[in-house]
């Protein structure tokens, strides 16, 4: 079990709603961004003079540009339906991690400066001035929100705390109070092309290695091309896929699927990142600038289609925002949606019977599936609502014999975040990550106990990294989290690949 200098939550047999413990997470905050990282993104390097005034002005600016913020600041009636829905509240018991209380940190300032009631009767309506303490609370608690939108599912007005977290982070960035993790990473994308800062030659090297591995394993020459012009498909995938387990097994799977489909494809060293941390910091400008690299790569490489690899919030930005940010995509093949998810691509091939999948090759595992929050509640796959739940499950069922879902209340649109989303996947937030994972791990534990589940599949780079890191805190193994396309890769028998049985038959003859 991993060592922790905080108390790791207990996994209970039945999910419990904890009593509030005010202030228990008040100390939790991520490292502040350095001036260099801030300035690269167009933000002031450090806390500006006159920061109260500038923050209020920024709030006013955002209120005029985002209807979500405008409406959500007014509409909350404090009904409490969201109070027991956030995984960070359930895992930490800190009442400021209840969605409504998190929103109120911003709302009380909104009321003070932007509403008549708050100007005249601040005490009555819970309005306060923007003080240093309030700013401190903003920084700490808006970095205990993974923007997973679970609260918005249950809110009678659809109030989405993610929208408010994003606005709060943008206000803080605008006065020079940024988060190191997100802002440093966005800078890396601008400089090098991906979150991990892997340069082109390193990518080429990795991909060559993958080709060799796949050849050794299957005897088939599956290509993992980089920067190849004039091909059909540009694959945009999270950079973790080039680098870490179990992500890279997913990338191997994508390559095999493309190979079997007989399509030509390429990765881009310029746009070598699916993730878009511009969303986490609520910055339209940065989100657009990161996305622009994909458009530029697609034009330069002359591709006809764009497919995204397994990444949760990347898929949100891709599916929901890409057309808005850097569209229109009229220069691509109009027969395909732009962009497509790799799961949509694989699912179509399975439907057409073009993939030969031997499920027994995954018989060493009993699977469950974790719906990644941003895929589940902020995107879609296929042409029917809910395809984002059904398509990945259909792929898993086509690749494995043993699959069980976790408790209904913790999957599909009610899924729990892994605890590391929204820009919190950093070691300086380990406590909140471990505690925030508790509801998901608890549901996982149930199916481990009751169904003998051994592995959990996911389609998000953050989920995979987060679980790899936090499962050991709960006495589980980091290898229990797998990629969906890793399962496909295991089960897929490539054309021309000799299987063991066939070899045995040949030897006998």
């Amino acid at each position, binding site marked *: 079990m991993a060592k922790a200098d905080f108390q790791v939550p207990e996994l209970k047999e039945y999910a419990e709603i904890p009593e509030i413990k005010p202030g228990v997470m008040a100390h939790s905050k991520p490292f502040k961004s350095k001036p260099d990282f801030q300035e690269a993104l167009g933000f002031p390097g450090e806390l500006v003079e006159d920061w109260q005034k500038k923050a209020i002005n920024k709030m006013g600016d955002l209120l005029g540009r*985002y209807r*979500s913020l405008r409406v959500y600041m007014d509409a909350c009636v404090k009904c409490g339906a969201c109070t027991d829905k956030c995984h960070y509240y359930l895992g930490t018991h800190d009442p400021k991690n209840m969605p409504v209380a998190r929103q109120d940190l911003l709302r009380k300032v909104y009321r003070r400066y932007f509403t008549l009631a708050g100007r005249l009767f601040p005490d009555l309506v819970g309005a306060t001035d923007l003080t240093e303490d309030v700013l401190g609370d903003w920084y700490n608690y808006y970095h205990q929100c993974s923007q997973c939108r679970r609260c918005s599912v249950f809110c009678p007005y659809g109030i989405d705390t993610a929208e408010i977290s994003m606005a709060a982070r943008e206000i803080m960035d605008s006065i020079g109070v940024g988060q190191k993790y997100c802002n440093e990473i966005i800078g890396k994308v601008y400089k090098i092309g991906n979150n991990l800062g892997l340069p082109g030659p390193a990518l080429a090297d990795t991909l060559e290695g993958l080709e060799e591995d796949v050849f050794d394993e299957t005897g088939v020459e599956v290509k993992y091309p980089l920067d190849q012009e004039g091909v059909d498909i540009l694959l945009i995938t999270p950079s973790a896929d080039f680098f870490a387990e179990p992500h890279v097994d997913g990338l191997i799977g994508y390559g095999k699927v493309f190979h079997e489909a007989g399509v030509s494809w390429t990765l881009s060293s310029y746009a070598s990142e699916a993730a878009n941390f511009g969303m986490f910091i609520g910055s339209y400008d940065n989100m657009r600038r990161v996305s622009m690299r994909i458009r530029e790569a697609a034009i330069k490489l002359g591709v006809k289609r764009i497919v995204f690899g397994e990444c949760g919030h990347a898929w949100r930005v891709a599916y929901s925002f890409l057309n808005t940010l850097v569209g229109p995509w009229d220069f691509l093949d109009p027969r395909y949606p732009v962009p497509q998810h790799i799961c949509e691509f694989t699912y179509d091939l399975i439907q057409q019977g073009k993939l030969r999948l031997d499920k027994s090759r995954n018989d060493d595992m009993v699977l469950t599936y974790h719906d990644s929050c941003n895929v589940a509640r902020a995107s879609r796959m296929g042409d029917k609502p809910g395809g984002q739940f059904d398509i990945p499950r259909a792929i898993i069922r086509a690749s494995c014999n043993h699959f069980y879902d976790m408790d209904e209340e913790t999957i599909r649109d009610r899924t729990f975040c892994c605890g590391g989303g929204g820009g919190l996947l950093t070691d300086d937030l380990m406590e909140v990550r471990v505690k925030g994972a508790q509801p998901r791990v608890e549901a996982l534990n149930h199916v481990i106990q009751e169904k003998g589940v051994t592995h959990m599949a996911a389609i998000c780079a953050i989920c995979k990294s987060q679980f790899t890191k936090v499962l050991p805190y709960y006495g589980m193994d980091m290898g229990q989290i797998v990629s969906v396309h890793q399962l496909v890769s295991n089960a897929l028998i490539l054309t021309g690949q000799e299987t063991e049985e066939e070899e045995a038959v040949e030897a006998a003859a």
Partner: protein
Amino acid sequence: MSLISNFYAYLFYFATFVLLGGLALKVWQYARTPAPLKIPTTPAPTTGSGVVLRMTREVVLFESLFRGNKWTWIFSWMFHFGLLLVTLRHLRYFIDPVPVPLQMIQPFGIYGGMAMVVGLGGLWVRRFFVDRVRYISSRSDHLILGLLVAIGLSGLTMRFVVHTDIIRLKEFFAGLYNFEIVTLPADPVLLLHLLLVATLMIIFPYSKLLHMPGLFFSPTRNQVDNPREQRHIAPWAKRLEQE
């Protein structure tokens, strides 16, 4: 007596002005603020008619709240549906002649009044006994509940305990349409009832009661899930492209 009648006449002119003007301003503000990104909470409808259906379920059945918390749902639905019946029942004091459907709904308005008070009571109890809800409640949350309960109770009192001269009341409001101030029956319970209702009208556009228009403008609920098919772009975002 004319002092009281005058006061109430001007109070209701003022309250109506604030309610309608304030709401119109807010609706205008919501409507003109762009929603730059597609953010429906998915799974979401892929067509406009699907969105109308989703919104209808939210407005009429409180679908999301039902999934969120059954107790809050049952109390708030009782309150809101009760309030609807009560409002419909009250229309007869403002319309002449009274249309047949309104006549038929009269007895249900009474049950509505009771349901409203019971629902409000349940919601209020939660603010004291559920620690999470107690934590998020501010004084204004209690005051608004108190105001609504007092409106309900004073109304029910006039139905069951001390009746008022409803004919003269109706004449008073009919007079207001023509800017004539007719004498209002000076029953204390009625005056209290009317004072509270006018207060409610005045605070409506300045309080959380804005959830009513707000719901219709909530992008997570009212957007069509079709970002790949149709490019959605706000005017301010479009300007970035021209730079």
